[in-house]
């Protein structure tokens, strides 16, 4: 299957990425090749097969919902690209 350049640009917007115009043709070609590869799955009849969403069939046990981590505000903020007065800083959103 081939994918159109317009579709690739639209997907990039959804993924919050920008593909440079000069890189676009190669990107479109590579994505088309990968999609052709994955379309081999259409050869298989999977009508009555249950989807496998987890690597193992095992129950996920519940546990009591107890806070067990301390307030690490300073440690969490220490990796922030920009913060002020104990808050993450972002560009102005509302005029």
């Amino acid at each position: 299957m081939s994918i159109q350049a317009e579709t690739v640009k639209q997907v990039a917007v959804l993924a919050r990425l920008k593909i440079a115009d000069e890189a676009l043709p190669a990107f479109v070609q590579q994505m088309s090749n990968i999609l052709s590869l994955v379309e081999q799955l259409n050869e298989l009849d999977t009508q009555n097969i249950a989807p496998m969403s987890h690597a193992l069939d095992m129950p996920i046990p519940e546990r009591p919902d107890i806070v067990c981590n301390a307030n690490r505000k300073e440690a969490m903020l220490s990796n922030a690209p920009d913060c002020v007065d104990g808050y993450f800083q972002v560009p102005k959103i509302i005029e």
Partner: protein
Amino acid sequence: MDPSQLTLVQTQSMLRARQISARELAIAFLDRIDRINPDINAFITVDREGALRAAQQADERLHQGNATPMTGIPIGVKDLFCTENLRTTCGSKMLSRFIPPYESTVTRKLKEAGAVILGKTNMDEFAMGSSNETSWFGPVKNPWDPQRIPGGSSGGSAAALAAGLALATIGTDTGGSIRQPAALTGITGLKPTYGRVSRYGMIAFASSLDQAGPMARSAEDAAVVLQCIAGHDAQDSTSIRADVPDYAKTLYPRMDAIRIGIPTEYRPDNLLPEIQQALEKAEQIFRDLGAVLVPVSLPHTRYAIPTYYIIAPAEASSNLARYDGIRFGYRCQDPVDLKDLYTRTRTEGFGDEVKRRIMLGTYVLSSGYYDAYYRKAQKVRRLIANDFHEAFKSVDLLLTPTTPTTAFPLGDKIDDPVAMYLSDLFTINVNLAGLPGISIPCGTDAQGLPIGMQLIAPILKEENLLSAAHAFQTATTWHQRKPEL
């Protein structure tokens, strides 16, 4: 002392007998890293200070007599395990200055056992790649031939071992990222059952497939490392609640009455002839050790790569949505508004392969395509897993090549993603089914490059893999070969 000649198990007894101190050992490895790492680029970060501190504590424990089998052992850890206060990059510009505020379970267990972490090893960016060429910190060179790739994504962990820069390393394996580089560098690499080792603090790529495991110079060494890191962890809801056997005690030199299945689908016509021959010789060795070999069929094998390249990118596109430039990681300069901040941060912070997979994942999960791609792939995933479960009704283990070729030249496949993806032809199925698999050296090609073979076992049968690999390594010397450096 030449640290590159040691094994983990030998070193344990030397430390216990006080023939060497943990400090002397750490210094010997750090000096060797200083000398050799600039040529092969296996480490992104070398933590000399932390290693020497850990070595000193290890010496105190050895002196007090409360050492564990990992105490004083110098190791490398793939740079996607969060290490508190030690930079963790995941091979990406996005995290090139990230200092984790917490410790992954795997590294916590290693540190508590007294292991000496020498540094963080190089890897494909966000573990996406099969050649270690997508790392933002530059490619890793294969110690057997610096013009060639070491495999990926745990290429730094594999190359560090092959070059004698650590006694063991930790890798992760989402589609073959421990086993494929292990094969291409002539070392032993084990991917445990999904859930055997905690994923807490591992930077996520494809959460239903990711699994950490040991890389070592022998199965015996790998058993010691797995013992340390395996087991249930309340911090990871997908970790398995099952007892961990004593792996060192389950290693046997014989394989009497063990049934090994040879899947016909794993011997394609275009398999490198030297790999085919090495596998045939290995089969004979297993027979001589007492095993019974039988042909088996895994009919959905060829659908594994297409299935994986829907499921893994879909999960990755979701996992990597968190890199938005707000709370941690890279942020672009002077954003004009929030959308510009997100888009430029991600465009500048991610490399091409990561972008490609995020785009693919976004596409296959987008409205109207979900059933055609993601749901379809989940159904085929079950067919692939069922093939294995069916085969394991009549055999104990499966034996396959680990890779279709030996190490290829740098640059050979980097511009052709589909060709690169096919490098994982024999390993990806195992992740989809959640099974444990091990790669061990079993020969060389005409140029002397290592060939690896893979053994696969049912869920939670790591001890059977390690025992079979140990029996093979008792009868052969391929795992003792070392490159000249």
